[in-house]
């Protein structure tokens, strides 16, 4: 990563230029420390943890929330939030499945429809936030309800199954030993990184989160940028929908309840400021993996599920608390 690109790391790190130093002052320090500490704990606690198989397993499990968290990162960087991602994902998946199964349409159309639904609802959110000047949290909360309702109306409450076999490739397929969802996730992250760190659009995303008035007065098209970030969030929700549909081999209108909170947790664990303006997409990936490892590791250790909630909460607090020192 180029130094210039690294918005949010303090100046001093640049001056000294040592890699360790840079890392210690980078917003990635927290997520990395968390990741290392938690992985080490898990490795000690369970023999099954540090196997190639299990690591791929964790990454595959992470993929859906990980992809959702990409769009969430864009939105949060501008100072917004998107509570609708889980519901939009479910709706996109349900409609895609419905088109393939009930209407017997070609599968490609189903996938396109998923993307259309996701991007469409994302732009709807974005338009209301940018032109309607409405707070993102409430707009997306409303969209969440709307998307869930539409999904249930469309499916009548039944999951839609009987998808063509190739759909499962997106969820359970492998290229070499690497699961397809993991590859999709990595590609999404790479594209997001390029967009955020290598293009003017990315800078504008950070600028709006840093000081929206200043950005607007200096000629940044803040409304277009906000529209775009919500569109991107809808897009990643629809990509997540495709992966999830492949994993479940059915359209589930009630899938992904609470995933928006997991995605937000991944973004914030990844060191992105919830108020916007600062953060790195790589951090989000680390945050998502950290959450995945927690879920996986606690399961591997055979911990009582009720207890898992408590331990997960405490570890998240600990990770953020340690990380805070580096900010």
């Amino acid at each position, binding site marked *: 990563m180029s130094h210039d690109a690294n918005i949010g790391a303090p100046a001093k790190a640049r001056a000294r230029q040592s890699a360790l130093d840079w890392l210690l002052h980078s917003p990635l320090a927290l997520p990395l420390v968390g990741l290392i500490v938690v992985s080490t704990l898990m490795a000690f606690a369970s023999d099954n943890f540090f196997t190639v198989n299990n690591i791929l397993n964790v990454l595959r499990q992470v993929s859906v929330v990980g992809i959702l968290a990409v769009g969430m990162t864009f939105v949060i960087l501008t100072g917004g939030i998107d509570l609708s991602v889980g519901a939009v994902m479910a709706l996109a998946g349900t409609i895609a499945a419905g088109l393939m199964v009930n209407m017997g349409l070609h599968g490609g159309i189903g996938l396109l429809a998923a993307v259309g639904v996701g991007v469409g609802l994302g732009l709807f959110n974005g338009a209301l936030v940018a032109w309607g000047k409405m707070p993102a949290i409430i707009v997306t909360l409303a969209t969440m309800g709307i998307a869930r309702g539409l999904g*249930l109306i469309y499916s009548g409450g039944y*999951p839609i199954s009987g998808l063509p076999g190739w759909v499962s490739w997106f969820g*359970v397929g492998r290229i070499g030993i690497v699961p397809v969802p993991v590859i999709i996730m990595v590609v999404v992250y790479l594209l997001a990184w390029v967009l955020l760190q290598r293009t003017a659009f990315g800078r504008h995303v950070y600028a709006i989160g840093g000081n929206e008035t200043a950005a607007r007065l200096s000629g940044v098209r803040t409304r277009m940028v906000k529209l775009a970030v919500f569109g991107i969030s809808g897009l990643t929700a629809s990509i997540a929908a495709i992966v999830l549909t492949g994993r*479940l081999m*059915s359209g589930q209108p009630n899938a*992904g309840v609470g995933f928006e909170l997991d995605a937000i947790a991944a973004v914030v664990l990844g060191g992105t400021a919830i108020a916007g303006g600062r953060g790195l997409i790589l951090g989000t990936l680390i945050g998502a993996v950290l959450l995945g490892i927690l879920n996986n590791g606690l399961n591997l250790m055979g911990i009582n599920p009720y207890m898992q909630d408590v331990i997960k909460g405490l570890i998240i607090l600990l990770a953020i608390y340690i990380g805070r020192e580096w900010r």
Partner: protein
Amino acid sequence: QDSLKIGMTFQEMNNPYFVSMQEALNEAAASIGAEVVVTDAGHNVAKQISDVEDMLQQGIDILLLNPTDSAGVEAAVRMAKDQGVIVVAVDANANGPVDSFVGSKNRDAGYQSCSYLAEALGGQGEVAILDGIPVVPILERVEGCKAALEEHEGITLVDTQNGRQDRSVALGVVENMIQSHPNLAGIFSVNDGGAMGALAAIQGSGRDIKLTSVDGAPEAVQAIAEGGPFIQTTAQFPRDQVRVGLGMALAQYWGARVVPTEVPIDVRTVDAENAADFSW
């Protein structure tokens, strides 16, 4: 007075089990010219009480109550009774002066599924339970399952995790279960929703793990008919539950004084042999 008004409150309605119940209710009501009001509590007891309050405002005569939680809805039952509404609990019982309760033998269901699983494994091997939302019917199924497993010396219960009866959650949970127990041979899921997630996880892992469940949902029945890891589900009869439940309520509406306080509905094993012929 105008036509008979029936209110039914469901604990959730994004589950084919309850959707088919609603369909049966609509058909039955149509045949006697009654009006139906339906609400969805979304697993939220407080909302369920509000829903009942709202239905009472609409002047229903019969309340079919599918409680999210037996204890929690007591206030709703009392309120309904105070207004002279006939209350029949369906699928799970409710505390308070319920006129009648119609529901599956959930303990039997758990027992049947786990006996089937243990026998299919030849009485040997590690099994796990995929638990669900802690409400009485689910807890009874787990209880029944454990009782069945205990009858087999060679079977060890190695893990219990919560899939929240949700396909996507169950998928991840079972993937982890499979990773952590290399010798896992069987899984019992408390319902078919979770079982479908478990099935995807088992198929994804390529391991030979047998799966049993409770419900008899169309998707599950189809998967069982196709053969594979999903070998059995203990079917309930949601349509019949609501038909019987409505019957109980109507009997009282017409003046019957001795209505059975509890009508247990049998459950039935569905496996590869009879799956093709089964449907709710």
